[in-house]
């Protein structure tokens, strides 16, 4: 059987060496055990260790290896090599500053995430044991808590590209709703106040690129809609 190979076109840029970015044409031979895009990238790095990308858990939990794959954001470790159209065009996540090759500066993304206070706020004295929830209350958090902060959604969102400093973006808003929906959290009003301006929440125009991009199958647009409902309910 002839060896499988993948033809890549990869965005390369090392500010220490290159005057400007370029697309590198490269073909790599695969081993039979190489199933996912990340396997091929690791093999590529074995041949040319200047090829730079983030990766860690290699199983879709850490969210490190998000990149733009044939025009769509996704995780290299969850993307099957079989069926991937060639040449496979790899670019860094759009809309964030490139540090090097496929590595982007995530500062703006995490700044927005931290701005929604992604932790439980409850000033009541803790009970003797846990703060309990009913199974139904806990059910509300499904589809919200699973976010791995890979940034595939926010960097596919035109509103985030346009105003990354003012619009919280789908990942941050999904997290905001995760705490708004939590029966143990008591900061509902403050959380809504924090989002009540023309940009932070309301720049979402339900384009739904985020839903299309999310490698975990989550739906930030629905969560954003629910925050908007809460805003309306509070106003009337």
């Amino acid at each position, binding site marked *: 059987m002839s060896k499988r190979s993948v033809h890549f076109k990869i965005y390369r840029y*090392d500010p*220490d060496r290159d005057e400007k970015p370029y697309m590198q044409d490269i073909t790599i031979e695969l081993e039979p055990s190489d199933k996912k895009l990340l396997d091929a990238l690791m093999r590529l*790095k*074995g041949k*040319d*260790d*200047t090829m*730079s990308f*983030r990766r860690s858990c290699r199983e879709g939990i850490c969210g490190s290896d998000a990149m733009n794959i044939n025009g769509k954001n996704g995780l290299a470790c969850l993307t099957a090599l079989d069926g991937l159209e060639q040449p496979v065009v790899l670019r860094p996540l759009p809309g964030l500053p490139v540090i*090097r090759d496929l590595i982007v500066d995530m500062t703006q993304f995490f700044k927005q995430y931290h701005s929604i206070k992604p932790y439980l706020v409850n000033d009541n004295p803790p009970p003797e044991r846990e703060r309990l929830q009913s199974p139904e209350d806990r059910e509300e958090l499904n589809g919200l808590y699973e976010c791995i902060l890979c940034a595939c959604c926010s960097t596919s969102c035109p509103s985030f590209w346009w105003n990354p400093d003012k619009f919280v973006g789908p990942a941050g808003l999904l997290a905001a709703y995760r705490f708004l929906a939590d029966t143990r959290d008591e900061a509902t009003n403050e959380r809504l106040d924090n989002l009540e301006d023309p940009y932070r929440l309301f720049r979402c125009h339900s384009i739904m690129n985020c839903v299309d991009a999310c490698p975990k199958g989550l739906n930030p647009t629905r969560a954003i809609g629910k925050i908007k409902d809460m805003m309306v309910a509070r106003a009337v």
Partner: protein
Amino acid sequence: MVPTAHYQMGGIPTDYSGHVVVPKDGNPNTPVAGFYAAGECACASVHGANRLGTNSLLDLLVFGKAAGETAVEELQGGQLPLRPLPADAADFSLARLARLESQINGESVFEVGQDMRRSMQKHAGVFRFDALLKEGVSKIKEIAERAGRTQIGDKSKVWNTARVEALELDNLIEVAKATMVSAEARKESRGAHVRDDAPDTAEFPNGRNDTVWLKHTLWYSEGNRLDYKPVNLNPLNEGTEPIALAKRTY
């Protein structure tokens, strides 16, 4: 489908407040002033020989908080008997970097890493065999020597993942040696350490030999040697009875 490692049992020995502890002057758990560890790298010794599901939260939330609080408290207290930082304190780290920068005709980080992973999987995997472990000890020693000669092509100063991976490989090799050498020496089954030649019998429940092997293994990088220390089976709070050793039946 293959089994993979998702948790590292054992680690830098600590007490419940995050102090790193070493055997000294007859006390197997003497704190090292100003040295703390928490998380998966640490071993506060609450898991026994097999950490059960969700219990790694203890390492993160309980001992992480404790270690942080202890470090802050002791630094602010000003009572730590710390010696001045030696003038050559950075030399070891700088030497590692300098070695990588100047290495020629060296080994590939990717290939040495692959060989290390394959050897660990084959020789210290889910089920362990005496002959394979013995072979593994010499193999991992050879691989460690190769890891000392790794070469990187990427000399960039910007986000150099090749350099990071080479340094990580040095660290992984240390853990691999500790795992292989300790596992080969421990002639029983215990928790996740399951040896083919130490099966479950009436005399040795789960293959465990408590008379000889109810003890912690201590591995020293210097000289690649082993030592042992007793296991503390007594709860720290007064009035709580220790849980007796028993056979694991699930």
